[in-house]
């Protein structure tokens, strides 16, 4: 059986709720949150298309994939406003929730 490299974990803090969860470096901020049954970032398509999980990363480094320009402009992307489903943490992360279903999970 092939040996697997143990996952690297980082702490993600949702500033809106003060909640922190651990997220694997090889999974998106959104999947990491869902895996642990946590809430805080609204969950939509999980594919960068619907814009529901829009967040502003205020601290930490991350890797990102292509996101729909319907929801994230080039300026926003340059300012670390991203979709949580397309972002994998490379350090501990702090973020604010901007997505349109925010009222449901951050109230």
């Amino acid at each position, binding site marked *: 059986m092939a040996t697997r490299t143990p996952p690297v974990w980082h702490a993600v803090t949702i500033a809106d709720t003060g909640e922190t969860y651990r997220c694997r470096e090889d999974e998106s901020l959104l999947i990491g949150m869902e895996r642990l049954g946590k809430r805080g970032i609204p*969950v*939509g*398509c*999980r*594919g*960068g*298309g*619907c814009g*529901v999980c829009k967040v502003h990363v205020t601290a930490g480094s991350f890797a990102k*994939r*292509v*996101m*729909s*320009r*319907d929801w994230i402009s080039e300026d926003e992307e340059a300012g670390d406003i991203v979709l949580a489903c397309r972002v994998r943490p490379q350090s501990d992360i702090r973020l604010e929730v901007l997505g*349109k*279903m925010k009222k*449901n999970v951050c109230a």
Partner: protein
Amino acid sequence: MATTGVMRPGHIQLRVLDLDESVDFYKNVLGLVETARDEAGRVYFKAWDERDHNSVILRQADRAGVDLIGFKVKDAATLEQLDKDLQAYGVATERVPAGELLETGERVRFTIPTGHVMELYADKTDVGNGQPYTNPDPWIPAAEHGIAPHRFDHCLLYGPNLEENLKLFTEVLGFHLVERILMEDGKSLLATFISCSHKAHDLAFVAHPEPGKLHHVSFLLGSWEQVLRAADIMSMNRVSIDIGPTRHGITRGTTIYAFDPSGNRFETFCGGYETYPDHQAITWTFDEVGAGIFYHDRKLNERFLSVVT
């Protein structure tokens, strides 16, 4: 029933964010058959049991969603007549030359009141379903590769002007209303399910302020067992599942919803009932819309209602 005029949804062109990832998904997870690639970089697919050359076309773009939906009409004379009928009704049409979409004849293109681009066409090359037209077997190996739906069946579109839209489809294009959901006022349309054939729906619309949005593209499976198998394949491949397996009150289909790698929602479903143009439309009131959409949960799920591309 005799299917004349507009016969069926024939093709849908979807925008995807990463073409290679999407081609792998549509080919190996959803289990469509790749049939061609064109100079513009678009990739063409058909479901294994479809006979025409293509039904799903992927185009890489910087945003997800739907470019256009094409309906096949009976023949060239029907196409000419419908173009005249649309113009007489006040809808501006344009012609897209044969071959712009591979293996597809001339198309009549127009924008419907919900903001979606629709096309009518009479010709698309018959490449068959992998079986001969003489003494065929019932299925082929492609019928078990991935989820492997039988066909692109319908789609649900979000946009404004549902009343005006319903009039266009029923008065000009020969559709009939099968089911509808009313708003809280008991009069305005929240949703319409319309058919140009014997199917419970060939198209559906939900009222939404933003025009031209895609809620889902739907693929037909052969049994409830295959809906469960589709769910298993989705989970094995870490596909983003929205909801299901479950049943709709509306149209009675058994279903599972998930998202493609760009966030375009798709449905793989089975069942429903057959409809005829003389059938009285079924109405769902606003207070029962939960059971109408998800018959077992009997309540709405905000993601299902508000996430569109």
